[in-house]
């Protein structure tokens, strides 16, 4: 059993399990799944600030900050007890495309030549780690949600706001991968 769990899980196991978080959070505590809002909570907790966007009772939202603490813990537990040593088996077309762009390290979850402390101050590191992180924080809050709030929960509720946001997510991702990647990586 534990050996099966250690393998990477197929989409038809992981996807439905992720979907179950929508009713689980609603029925247990009447909460809608929401992860990027913890960025806002963090700013509200940490910075004593005059900005209206961060003036609210963030303690009411303690649950989602405990949830993401759990996500972090889950990541650690997987590394300690459930990890297999295999690399991510990506499609040969993707492998070929990424090699053409100069990516050579395919072990682990992300290419080590970009996502490492030593790569942080190169052009790639600045774009992929620093600007990338900034855009994730800025964009999710401007859009009023991320993959959990808009794509999973919002689409489950057939929310028009979420359909538009998800179209935006994909437009941005396609723009990035097909237009900006060749410029930055070559």
């Amino acid at each position: 059993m534990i050996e099966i769990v250690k393998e990477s899980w197929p989409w038809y196991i992981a996807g439905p399990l992720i979907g179950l978080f929508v009713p689980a959070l609603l029925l247990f505590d009447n909460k809608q799944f929401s992860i990027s809002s913890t960025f806002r909570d963090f700013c509200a907790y940490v910075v004593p600030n005059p900005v209206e966007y961060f003036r609210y009772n963030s303690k009411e939202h303690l649950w989602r900050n405990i949830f993401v603490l759990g996500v972090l813990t889950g990541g650690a537990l997987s590394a300690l007890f459930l990890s297999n040593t295999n690399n991510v088996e990506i499609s040969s077309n993707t492998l070929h495309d990424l090699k053409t762009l100069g990516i050579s390290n395919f072990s682990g979850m992300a290419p080590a030549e970009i996502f490492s402390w030593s790569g942080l101050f190169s052009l790639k590191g600045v774009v992929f780690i620093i600007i990338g992180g900034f855009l994730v924080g800025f964009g999710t809050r401007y859009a009023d949600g991320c993959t959990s709030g808009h794509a999973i929960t919002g689409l489950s509720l057939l929310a028009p706001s979420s359909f538009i946001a998800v179209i935006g997510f994909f437009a941005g991702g396609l723009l990035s991968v097909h237009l900006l990647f060749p410029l930055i990586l070559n």
Partner: protein
Amino acid sequence: MKYLVHLIFGILFGIILIKAEVVSWFRIQEMFRFQSFHMYGVIGSAVFVGALSVIIIRKFNIKTFSGDAVNLTPKPLKVYANFSGGLLFGLGWAFTGACPGPIYALIGNGLSVFIIVLVFAYLGTYSYGILRKRLPH
């Protein structure tokens, strides 16, 4: 007690994200290059199960464990903000290979440089907070 359950939910979610490789930069590349069904399968079947649950909750008027009406109010429609914010997030999602949940999961998983991704995500959110009134919504 309530928070312990949220912690356990979070732990399970983190394990699923890692084990399904949803946190992998390589998987996000496959998705935006339309070269694998994996991510579409994960997101599609998650939405299918989520939507089915919402239909069941509505149809049978199911209440929360404490007996309240379930909050099924969607996020408000702000076409400009939903789209432009989404677009900016999409750019960042492709660069980092991680949406917010996976950022936390990857840090736990040992990819410590994602702490920098998280710090800049906080800064991004903070900048949005400052600029919000001047941005079209």
